[in-house]
């Protein structure tokens, strides 16, 4: 192990993103968004190479050249899983506000450090991104979670970060679950009545939304019309897939129990909070202008064209405090098209198929560490 002589250096400050970069996340023509994104990503690579010694070592070891990449495909990338195994920071410790950690379906969380700058970028990006969904005003917000999720001390989980992030986009939040995970249906009915005629913004993790707004509702014979409302859910389909619930069943359930018909999925990494991919009215996940997505062959890692499923690589203009701007995920997906979605949103749009099965690395021992 190399003994680093000094903590990460203060890199020369990154140029701020121009205001135009923030305006229309799904309306920006790609020939404007993409060059700007590439310039920014190259600047981020340079920044992280200087500020994060581990990142520099990885780039050198994998032979990524020093100069700027001429296309997204040529950008260096890290396996997202690396953030489960190493703490990588591009800012000195005293500038770190908090560490975000993922829920980790395989039990090992990813951790990334946020400084004030990155946190602000993320919040601003998320707000801009959500405007097509919730408009400019703040909608009455129903959080399909417990208030306690936010209040837990220590490193922030992905769930808490999502709730905190999206909560700022609504007003008068109602937390639907109590501390024991029980649904307060009466409170929800009262909330709907109190905000009669207003569009509700309902947010939660996909599995939780299913378990409460569909399964619990069915069990308790709840018949409530929550429309008009928009439901935003994310966090993966794995838990539902285990119960043989697919997207169609999910939507059908929500329409049946609570007359919820505007249902949108989002897909994103804890390592790239703020540049999530959002589901459009035509059911595809769109990359916002400050991000993009590539698909690579899982074995050769060569970039694949549209229509061919492969590993998703996500790039984002936002991560400044850690080298998370170009990441190869463990999720499989397919690029459906580029700038040709029937919904009218610009840019690349994809479908996500799900996680690659976890590699069964058979180490010596059958003994699992004590939980």
């Amino acid at each position, binding site marked *: *192990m*190399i003994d680093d002589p000094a903590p990460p250096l203060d890199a020369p400050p990154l140029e701020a993103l121009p205001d135009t970069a923030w305006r229309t996340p799904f309306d920006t023509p790609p020939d404007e968004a993409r060059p700007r994104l590439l310039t920014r990503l190259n600047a981020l690579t340079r920044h992280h190479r200087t500020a994060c010694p*581990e*990142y520099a*070592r*990885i780039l*050198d*070891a*994998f*032979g990524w050249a020093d100069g700027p990449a001429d296309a997204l495909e040529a950008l260096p990338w*890290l*396996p997202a*899983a*690396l953030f*489960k*195994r*190493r703490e*990588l920071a591009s800012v000195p410790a005293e500038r770190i506000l908090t560490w975000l950690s993922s829920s980790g379906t395989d039990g090992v969380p990813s951790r990334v450090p946020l400084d004030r700058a990155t946190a602000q970028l993320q919040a601003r990006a998320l707000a801009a991104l959500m405007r097509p969904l919730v408009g400019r005003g703040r909608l009455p917000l129903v959080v399909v979670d417990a208030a306690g999720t936010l209040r837990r001390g220590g490193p922030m989980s992905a769930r808490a970060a999502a709730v905190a992030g999206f909560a700022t986009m609504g007003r008068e939040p109602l937390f639907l679950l109590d501390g024991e995970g029980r649904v307060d249906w009466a409170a929800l009915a009262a909330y709907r009545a109190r905000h009669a005629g207003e569009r509700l913004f309902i947010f939660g993790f996909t599995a939780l939304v299913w378990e409460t707004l569909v399964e619990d509702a069915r069990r308790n014979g709840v018949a409530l019309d929550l429309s008009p409302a928009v439901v935003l859910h994310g966090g993966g389909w794995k838990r539902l897939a285990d119960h043989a619930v697919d997207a169609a069943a999910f939507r059908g359930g929500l329409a049946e129990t609570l007359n919820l018909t505007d249902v949108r999925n989002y897909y994103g990494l804890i390592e790239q909070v703020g540049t999530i991919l959002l589901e459009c009215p035509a059911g595809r996940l769109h990359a916002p202008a400050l991000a993009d997505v590539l698909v*690579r*062959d*899982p*074995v*050769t*890692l*060569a970039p694949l064209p549209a229509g061919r499923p492969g*590993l998703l690589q996500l790039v984002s203009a936002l991560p400044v405090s850690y080298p998370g701007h170009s990441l*190869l995920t*463990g999720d*499989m997906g397919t690029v459906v098209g580029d700038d040709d979605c029937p919904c009218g949103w610009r840019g690349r749009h994809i479908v996500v198929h799900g996680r*690659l*099965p*976890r*590699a*069964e*690395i*058979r*180490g*010596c*021992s*059958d*003994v*699992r*560490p004590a939980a």
Partner: protein
Amino acid sequence: MSAPPPDPVELRLAPVVARTWPDALAGVRATLPMAPFVEPAVGFVAALAHALLSDRAMRRVPEVIALAHALRPAEVRRMAGDLAARTGCDRLRRARGLVFHVAPANVDTLFAWSWLLSLLCGNANVVRLSRRGGPAQAALLEVAGRLLAEPGWADIRARTLILAYGRDEAVTAALSAACDLRVVWGGDASVEALRRVPLPAGAQELSFPDRVSAAVIGAAAVNAADGDTLARVAEGLVNDVVWFDQNACSSPRAVLWVGAPAETEEARARFWPVFDGRLAETGWSLDGARTLARLAAAAELAADGRVRRWTTAPGGCAVLRGEAAGGEVSLSGHPGLGLLLEGSAASLDAAATRLPANVQTLACFGVSAEAVTAALAAARVDRVVPLGRALAFSTDWDGQDLLERLTRVVRLEALPRP
């Protein structure tokens, strides 16, 4: 929230009358030990080896063939002779009694090696299988099971219990309390976990901690080798690396070149293309999930500064090779999966200083055994073999003499005439 009930215990091979594991254990305990290397144990092992070697389906699982080969009659006779050489009229070798084996998750055939060696030594055996066993484990159990069902092997069946279960300390405790020797494979975590489970005062434990292994290659010999020799040596390293996904404790995870810099550079340029060619012929490759897992490990090794440069591209190549940083070649956290750290040294003595402390096997080409042993006077290397034989079974393992550990010595002093 209360703990979930333990998973059921599956009896894979058990004495005929047993339906539950306590019954099976009682049955096995009730048998009397046999002498080492007598019938029917010798006959059974010969029959099993023959059945495996002549079964065409075993071609899919070459590691099973390797096991059968290591237990063929000629080898068993050699083992018997080895043990006999240590006995005499005043010193006998007898079985320990009941041996409880805890098999590892990474080498499918090891449970059978441990079991059968112990059986040959006269012991009754209880084997806890890994539940993550693959096709080789399944194949072995199937063939052994068929054989044990035959009435001729009833005596063997009566003293054999092979089971699998999840986290169940009660079962482990009971099996440990019943045994005369506990054999723990599976690395530090297994050894430490099992050490917390008490053994009776009269029982011994044989344990196998985390070990790593490396290949040592003399550059001059590679440069002087003809095409056939080079092909043979490359094939040896290919097999040593790809079997068991490079996860066995004796799988070479590093390659140390010995020679002058120019010599070594030439040797590497000669050797690796032949290696890659032979590797491609085997068709061994990683799927997407393993490619990603290996990538994450490669990024980690680079981030830590333990690998300076990956000399093969991250995607598409079957074995990823990288230049180890100077000093000790650290192999902790190495994921297997076909990843080789390359280093070089001007001499064997210098190479010895680059080996990690828990290195077990050196698979060598182009260096003599005598030179290696001299250079390693201080190191903990337990095994020096030719390249290609890293994964071969041996009754000397991890510095232990297995035949000696699986038996006990009985001292018989001459008694004065009555």
